């Protein structure tokens, strides 16, 4: 493999590595705008200019590091010469002369490429004092589609967005129009930017030219706490960052995972947190008076769990049913399975709604999902259900199975659109006793005899198993409100009432126990789950792997 020396640090890289990437390997950040590791190289912004010595002779001009690919051992590169610094200052000046001073009202402030490089590589004053800035009248806040708004005055013409729609999304709605100083990005009239990855252009835009309709003016980014997590929109399980301010989620952004979602996520996934604010929150333990048997409930978790325990103990085991959902973490599903075993019922199902096809591109053929929940597979593998989950759930949602149940536990008050459908709720209500765990005070929770508040996916620790049979784990981004307790902990308390030896009370402890018992998870431990996740050693994973390889081969 060829070697290159950058600022006196030598590194060996794969043939064809660009200098920008090679520099990162030795901790040197070469500033750039138009370059992106997943997009074609255009060498346009000229921010990445560096000095290169080829076999001892300095190249007469500075070179754009993004377009220089290491093929041999000939190069010595410097990013800290006076010429490079002067060029960087010059480029920053050029970027800013026509750029509006919008920082006070621009979403991008705090994560803006111009701000950052201006501070690092630019100068602190402007020489553009006697001329008028170029503007694009009528293009200051123009919707390019339903998810993205353009302010053309702020654009630095890096064309990342155009190349994204052409090369990654494949939909090519964005184009580069006009020429020279009038050049602009836009869409053809009548063909707006509408593809399921459309908001990704907002992520890759270095400045505030492209803003997300759902995040516009929502929050200053420097007030956001950022925690890694996994998207719950579908079974692809894109890695995300939950960005919130004191527990109010302001946006999701994709988190880099080359094995799953690469740098991307879809618009649907980005919207999944909105319901946590929109829908009413179940934050307190609630028991219907007529369920207590003594005309009133005055208590908290302990009393509610005692009541539930009594109900389960006294019911005919075969007439207890547990309906989970694809939103359960693997650990929650595992414990529900244990509860079902303790009660002695085989009546278990997992509700998973179908969605449209979501396809997230990556360099290995991409990942696709059609289930609108992240973890049906985790529920399967953890032993809560067999492999024909969906059909079993239908018996409860559209059939009469609930009416035959003495106790029906629904472990998610927001398992899908059906949880808000009055007909479905009515059917489930026909169980003699309806117990609902959930974060949402949905009609289903309101109809329940016992409603027990548990966290949203961003308020708990857990693992999901995605469509690739990849195990990915996440921890709570922030603590839940009110009386909410993690479902794993609640189930552990409940199990302890059945089996005083039960000691696993956290997701981590539950996972480690699961790993010890279950061959699908053999050899794994909570503390050592890799950051990119790990493909489980199960036959379905083998099959999924060869299917993915076949689809990549087809594309090639």
């Amino acid at each position, binding site marked *: 493999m060829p070697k290159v020396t950058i600022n006196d640090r030598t590194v060996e890289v794969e043939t064809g590595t660009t200098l920008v990437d090679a520099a990162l390997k030795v901790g040197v950040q070469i500033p750039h705008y138009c370059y992106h590791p997943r997009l074609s190289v255009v060498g*346009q912004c000229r921010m990445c200019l560096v000095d290169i010595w080829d076999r001892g002779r300095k190249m007469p001009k500075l070179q*754009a590091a993004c*377009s220089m690919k290491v093929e041999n051992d000939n190069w010595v590169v410097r990013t800290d010469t006076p010429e490079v610094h002067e060029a960087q200052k010059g480029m920053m000046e050029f970027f800013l002369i026509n750029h509006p001073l919008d920082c006070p009202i621009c979403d991008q402030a705090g994560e803006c490429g111009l701000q950052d490089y201006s501070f690092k590589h630019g100068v602190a004053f402007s*020489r553009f004092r006697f001329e008028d800035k170029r503007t694009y009248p009528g293009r200051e806040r123009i919707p390019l589609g339903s998810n993205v708004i353009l302010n053309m005055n702020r654009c630095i*013409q890096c064309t990342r967005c155009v190349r994204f729609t052409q090369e990654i999304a494949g939909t090519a709605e964005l184009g580069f129009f006009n*020429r020279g100083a009038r050049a602009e990005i836009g869409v053809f009239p009548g063909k707006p930017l509408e593809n399921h990855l459309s908001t990704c252009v907002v992520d890759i835009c270095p400045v505030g030219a492209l803003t997300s309709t759902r995040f516009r003016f929502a929050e200053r980014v420097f007030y956001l706490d950022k925690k890694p997590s996994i998207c719950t929109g579908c079974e692809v399980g894109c890695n995300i960052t939950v960005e919130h301010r004191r527990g109010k989620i302001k946006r999701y952004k994709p988190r880099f995972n080359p094995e799953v979602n690469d740098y991307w996520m879809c618009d649907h996934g980005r919207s999944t947190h909105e319901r946590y604010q929109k829908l009413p929150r179940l934050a307190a333990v609630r028991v219907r008076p007529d369920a207590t048997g003594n005309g009133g409930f005055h208590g908290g978790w302990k009393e509610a769990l005692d009541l539930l325990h009594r109900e389960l103990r006294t019911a005919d085991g075969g007439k207890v049913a547990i309906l989970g959902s694809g939103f359960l973490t693997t650990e929650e599903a595992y414990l529900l399975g244990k509860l079902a075993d303790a009660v002695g019922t085989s009546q278990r199902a997992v509700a998973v709604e179908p969605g449209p096809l979501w396809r997230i591109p990556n360099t290995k053929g991409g990942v696709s999902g059609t289930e609108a929940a992240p973890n049906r597979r985790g529920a399967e593998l953890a032993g809560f259900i067999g492999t024909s989950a969906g059909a079993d759930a239908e018996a409860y949602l559209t059939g009469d199975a609930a009416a035959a149940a003495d106790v029906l536990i629904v472990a998610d008050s927001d398992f899908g659109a059906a949880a808000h459908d009055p007909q479905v709720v009515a059917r489930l209500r026909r169980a003699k006793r309806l117990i609902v765990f959930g974060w949402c005070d949905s009609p289903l929770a309101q109809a329940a005899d016992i409603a027990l508040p548990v966290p949203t996916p961003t308020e708990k620790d857990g693992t999901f198993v995605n469509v690739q049979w990849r195990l990915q784990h996440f921890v709570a981004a922030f603590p839940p409100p009110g009386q909410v307790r993690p479902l794993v902990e609640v189930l552990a308390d409940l199990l302890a009432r059945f089996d005083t030896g039960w000691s696993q009370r956290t997701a981590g402890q539950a996972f480690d126990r699961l790993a010890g018992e279950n061959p699908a998870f053999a050899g794994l431990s909570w503390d050592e789950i890799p950051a990119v996740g790990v493909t489980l050693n199960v036959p379905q994973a083998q099959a999924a792997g060869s299917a993915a390889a076949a689809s990549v081969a087809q594309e090639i």
Partner: protein
Amino acid sequence: MFEKVLTRNIHNPAVLTLDGYKKAGGYAALDKALKLEPDAIIEEVKKSGLRGRGGAGFSAGLKWSFIPKGKKPKYLACNADESEPGTFKDRLLMEFDPHQLIEGCAITCWAVQANTCYIYIRGEYTKAAAILEQALKDAYNGGILGKSVMGSGFELDMYVHRGAGAYICGEETGMLESLEGKRGQPRVKPPFPAVVGAFGAPTVINNVETLCNVPHIIERGADWFKAIGTDERNTGPKLYAISGHVERPGTYEHPIGITFREMLDAAGGMYKGGTLKAFIPGGASAPILTPEHLDIKMDFDTVAKAGSMLGSAAVIVMDDTTCMVRSVARLAKFFNHESCGQCTPCREGTNWMELILKRLEHGEGEESDGAKLLSICQHIAGNSLCALGDAAVGPVKSLVERFMPEIEQHVRERKCPYPHRRYFGNGA
């Protein structure tokens, strides 16, 4: 007495027909070339010292030798985009002697083993394009092009491809993009067109005038070619397009290296006997020269040593009624208009330079403007993606370096000191 080479046929309208061209000696060189080894032709052209006539002055033979052997397909793209202000020589060659160009292209294609040639002609040259289309048709009908060029078995297709109005499509990779049906935005180099050119294949790109020299080199030999001109690095006949304040603007063929004084005389001297103030030796991108350079040899190396460039040998002459600020402002406007917009220094820098020069010309100049223009030039030069940035810098930098007093006068007097306009009513 210098015998015309490239323009020998322009007063003979018969050469527009295939028969007429052949009668005038045409296609004998192609016939001869087809019997030579392709590499021998490349060597001969290299030996002749022919340097690109489109502006860059790169050795044509050397460029051809970069084309890899054995790879298929390969292309020749003839650069007939001729949009450099002051340049109109290629138009003359195409309108009056189209077969000379076709023959030059055919020989070049044989030398590099390219089976397809596109003549990329600027969209505004509708007449030249039509003449070329007709000449190509005649060439196909006469067996010069097609499945077997002059019966040799060598297959060659040649097409006219019209541009649509963009100076940047004269840049070789901008031209390739435009040929491929895209925005004419220059590409990052490397890879160079000899490796990845048109449609991903190795491509030679040469200017019209360069290609028109090829039949003559083959027919009369590299030594004959080398004997014309200044020295072994500046050889052959050259077309000079002279315009502006001269009595007889036009295209003149001289041995390369004729002095500017001689060229000016051949064009009838200064317009209406005016006094020379400045001249541009090689198109809008060339730094401006002054009367002290009257005896400069107009070849690549001498002009470069004088701090300018021969470029396309488009000579623009300005007399002492000319405002240099206004002239350079107009060129800055041109470069701003023609910038493709991809790269930051050119897109923003040419825009800024036009604004500053406009201010200066309209009496709103600031004392800092001259130094600022130089600083902007320094930030553009060498940093842009293609040579348009450097081209835009040429006139502006030379304005500040050679005509600073005139700039200062604009600033001091808050107006242009040369308000006289060439109006027909007052003797234009």
